[in-house]
């Protein structure tokens, strides 16, 4: 008899969820909203600022070509290589800047931790898929572009359950 | 002609014919289902890719390993007792149906033998269940 009651209770529990809100993010139409503009780092205190670790953004005016990001990446993913840029900055004599291969990058953000000059941050952009491997290699010029993103859906919780937006 | 129809052979032939006519649609639907769905297999054979390059593809499923031993072997199934009971009591249940469908036309005293029959069957069934439960595997 207890088995019957158990089954009926289970049925009841299942049926109750017919009217509960769907907890599904309809991805291409909805995009999750993240904290801040992406992961940033304060070298003075040695502590990061919370944010999504997406694609990097490189500030050319701050980069000195010191290769610290590349050295940090060497034991992790070997995704960063220093390339020549056709720009002249006073503080970047060698005129080299990081170029990131997103086919290898693991988005750990330790390169951002390594940068002492506020030059390398991460952004909220995570849609990096491409048809070729070579398109995943981002040059310093591509890394300088601020991504345009619209992410506005959050988890909302009310009496009828949680839902996205 | 009439003489034939009312002769025992003729009556039998009528019965068989009626039965055949009432059961033949089943066979017809059976064939129709095959005829209607079979072409999808042919169509699939036509439009689907067929690559026979890799012989590994045609190995039976063995979770990614090369199969060891035969798929068709002598194999022990421990629930043999159910099969045995089925063989015995399936026949008995047919008698029950014959009795059950005509019980409204029978005299009341006809119930007694069937109760005896049921008693024997249930006793045997209980014994079989007891034996099946006694041994974990047969």
């Amino acid at each position, binding site marked *: 008899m207890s088995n019957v009651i158990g089954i009926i209770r289970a049925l009841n529990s299942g049926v109750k969820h017919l009217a509960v809100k*769907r907890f599904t993010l309809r991805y291409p139409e909805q995009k999750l909203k993240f904290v801040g503009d992406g992961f940033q780092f304060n070298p003075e205190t040695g502590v990061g600022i919370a944010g999504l670790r997406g694609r990097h953004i490189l500030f050319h005016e701050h980069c000195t070509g010191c290769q610290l990001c590349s050295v940090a990446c060497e034991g992790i993913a070997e995704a960063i290589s220093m390339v020549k840029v056709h720009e002249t900055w006073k503080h970047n004599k060698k005129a080299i800047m990081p170029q990131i291969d997103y086919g290898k990058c693991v988005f750990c953000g330790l390169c951002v931790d390594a940068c002492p000059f506020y030059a390398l941050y991460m952004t909220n952009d995570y849609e990096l898929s491409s048809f070729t491997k070579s398109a995943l290699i981002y040059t310093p010029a591509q890394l300088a572009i601020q991504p345009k993103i619209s992410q506005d859906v959050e988890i909302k919780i009310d009496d009828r359950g949680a839902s996205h937006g | 002609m009439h003489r034939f129809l009312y002769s025992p052979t003729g009556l039998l032939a009528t019965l068989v014919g009626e039965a055949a006519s*009432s059961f033949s649609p089943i066979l017809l639907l059976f064939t129709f289902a095959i005829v209607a769905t079979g072409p999808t297999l042919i169509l699939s054979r036509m439009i689907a890719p067929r690559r026979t390059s890799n012989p590994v593809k045609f190995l039976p499923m063995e979770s990614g390993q090369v199969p060891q031993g035969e*798929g068709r072997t002598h194999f022990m199934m421990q629930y043999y007792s159910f099969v045995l009971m089925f063989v015995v009591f399936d026949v008995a249940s047919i008698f029950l149906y014959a009795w059950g469908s005509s019980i409204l036309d029978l005299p009341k005293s006809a119930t007694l033998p069937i109760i005896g029959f049921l008693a024997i069957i249930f006793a045997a069934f209980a014994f079989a269940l007891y034996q099946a439960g006694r041994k974990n595997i047969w």
Partner: protein
Amino acid sequence: MSTIAPQFRLSRFIGSLFDLIFWVILIFSLVGLPIVFIVLFYIKLPVINGQLMTPYLAMTWMADPSRTLPIVKSFMHTTIFRVMAFPGFGFAALLAAATIFVERKFLAKMQLRVGPLYCGKIEGILQLMGDGFKLMSKEIIIPAKADKPIFWLGPLLFVGTAGAFVALIPVAPGWVVANPSVGLLAVFAVIGFFPIIAVLTAWAANSKWTFIGGLRALHQMVAFEIPLILSLLGVVILSGSLNLSQIVQSQEHFWWIAFLPIGAIVFFITILAELERIPFDLPEAESEIVAGWLTEFSGMMYGLIQLGTYKIICICRIIRGSIPWWLEWSNGLASVSAGYYHSRNYNWSCNCTLPWIATF
């Protein structure tokens, strides 16, 4: 250039088109035309406006609307229409499709998902069609040492037996394909066919998983056969007939379930086991024996088996209706239990598609 997707070549495309046309014509002339003639042989051609209907006159029904209705009417009373369309194959296939769709959708609702959504704009209504085409375009792989003729025959036999099952079911007064006087026994006979097919294909595939699955299917079906048969005995005693149509007629005023609740419950449980639904899914338990006796089926062969399976589900549902134990409340129970306990197969279905069948 990638080796996976070779470049498009117009000549090859046109060549394959001609190839396709050739095959279609060949199959039509070899298979289709004989079927047409067989059908014409069986159809009793009506007399319309004083003249016997011939196939050539029938071709003109579109041109002469006054001739249309009588032709359709007379056609509806032929056996071939019953076999093909209404209580027969087409109707069952449609019901099966509706069952699959409704089951998927409502299960998704219970599991806080949305289910099929994008295919066909309105709530994914064309999802099944897409699945069908997908299965059709998939490669059929037959294991190396399989018994090929039997292996090919397996799905066809399965669908055919499911079709034969359809023939026995009275859908509405007078609407039944085959009406033998011992219809209930015929139902048992057809049910007894399925384990044979399962074991046959399982043995033919020469794989361990199918072998275990087939044996399990056999044992399970056999084990639940006697309770199934005995659970229906009460109905036979009360209605005094083995004919399904007469059983239905005998309960115009009230349903036998009022007298036979235990039998009803036993029937419900055993029919679940016969259909290999969760929680009786031993033959297809996917976490132990990959997919049981279906392991080696691929592409459209698997699709046919699924079609047959869902057809049987629908039929069993209608049997529940025609031996009216399972009217609204029981159908509701089945649908509810479906949602809570899996899934893939369960007959959610039950209430949602054409409940009137159960209540006629």
